[in-house]
């Protein structure tokens, strides 16, 4: 099996994306995508939480500070949250945080919120593929943060 090696950073930059996945929907969706052998990019680094409502803005900022090029938050669809309304909070927090990211010099497109249910393995694959390409086109976070 041939292994691709990065030649230079700018020629084939592989973004590192921390993905917060809720236990009941998106984590199970990711699991199912794997079981179904769907192609999902290896750039995704999953962190399981019980509910997308657990994801605090400070954790997302910490992820960027620790070197994540992108952060993906995936939860249950609105109305389907395993904990009834946890994702309502997420739905408000992430757009607000995206607005604030610009103010601290991080491109807001490096943070994405989406809803993936446990039955939506294909959506997990397509959202992750899409997001990896978005972040790839934005370049490494280190360049943006100037450090």
């Amino acid at each position, binding site marked *: 099996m041939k292994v691709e090696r990065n030649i230079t950073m700018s020629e084939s930059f592989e973004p*590192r994306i*921390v993905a917060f996945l809720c236990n009941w929907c998106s984590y199970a969706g990711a699991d199912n995508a794997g079981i179904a052998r769907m192609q999902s990019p290896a750039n995704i*680094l999953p*962190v399981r*939480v*019980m*509910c997308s*409502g*657990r*994801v*605090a803005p*400070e*954790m997302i900022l*910490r*992820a960027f500070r*620790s*070197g*994540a090029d992108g952060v993906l938050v995936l939860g249950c669809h609105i*109305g389907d*949250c*395993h*904990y*009834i*309304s*946890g994702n309502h*909070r997420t739905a408000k*927090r992430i757009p607000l945080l995206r607005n604030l990211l610009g103010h601290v010099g991080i491109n807001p497109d490096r943070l994405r919120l989406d809803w993936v249910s446990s039955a939506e393995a294909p959506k997990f694959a397509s959202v992750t593929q899409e997001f990896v390409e978005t972040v790839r086109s934005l370049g490494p976070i280190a360049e943006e943060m100037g450090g």
Partner: protein
Amino acid sequence: MMDAGRHPNITLLTYSEVEEVSGYIGNFNVRIRKQARSVQEDLCTGCGLCQEKCPTKVLDTAFEAGMGKRKAIYKPFAQAIPNVPLIDRENCLFFTKGRCKLCEKVCPTGAIDYEQEDQLLDVQVGAILVATGFAPWNPVQLSQYSYGRSPNILTGLQFERLTSATGPTGGEILTAEGKKPERVALIHCVGSRDERAHAYCSRICCMYSLKQAHQVRDKTGAAVYDFYMDMRAFGKAYEEFYARVQEEGITFVRGRGTEVQVLPDGKLQVKAEDTLLGRLVAVDVDIVILATAVEPQSDAGRVAGLFGLGRTPDGFFAEAHPKLRPVETSTGGVFLAGACQGPRDVPDTVTHAGAAAMEVVRLFNQGEVTISPTVAVVDAEQCVGCGECILACPYSAIARNAEERAEINAALCHGCGTCAATCPAGAITALHFTDEEIVAQIDGLLVLAT
């Protein structure tokens, strides 16, 4: 019902409403309002004299579905338990005009008490079982059925009163003009399987419509036209009953009865597409029976709020799992029985209710409840008492304690962690999913991926 009323371990509170619920599994506090009947239960012998003598007749829109009348002092239905009437204060001559008082005069035991007031009871219970039933959908909401424009267009429930031996006509199937019908139509799926009303199937109507079609044919010999979309005869001996009814000379039209028109001579015309013939048909009949949808009770929102119940998109109360946990809810100690969870017929309701009762017995036998350790905890020293977590919690598991700090009830907490992410002071720890653990994962993943 009589057995329940007599059982030494059962306290039957009728004509009562739950006003408030607090607490958690094994330790619920329930406030109940026992409404004033204006009749003292312990003195009343159920002789019925008051109801006989009461001069005020009122249209009975509840039990008689508008097909018959009752008195201002009345029992909800003949077999009601307890066998004690109540006064409808909105229609009683004494309460509205200060006159009459005939019931008090004729009562042999002096049980009438116009001064009686509502009573408030506070009870402590270990479990709650919600069995609040369903309501029939009102077909006046879709004008194509012309419901309300002719007294001979009936809902399925109204027809039940017509054909009942204890009903307004003693069980004779007659038109509103008192004549025997020569032609009768039944329409299935009125308000069900209909995007403009309810998308779901109401489950019970095909079978009761078959029964009603059979009764009309049997009692009157009238020509019967049954307009159906699909015949749902899913239960034990149901299909066999359908086969039997098909042999009785009833005309089954496979097509949704879409329109009922009231003709100038008072007859009713039902229009449909007969999908097996591929033709539009119109039939003139004397009586139309609409098999109306089953829907949640009108106060389902309030009841859901009282007991912390979720609701599925169809509006019925949410079971904990659609396949595997049909009688539990997402709140421990609160269970569901019967049609309040979804449309179902008598055998299925008995099964469902039996399962719910067993869950309560199981809970009580255990004596203790095991809860998940992934709950959230408040550090009272860090808490600033802002109350944001209280608003964020989907389970109302957080409350202010005596020191005005947030306190989480571990028995109610489901461990979602929303409060932990909400707290501006960082005072809440989501056990086993702490900030430190998550940050360690983030750092670890980013190091490994280089």
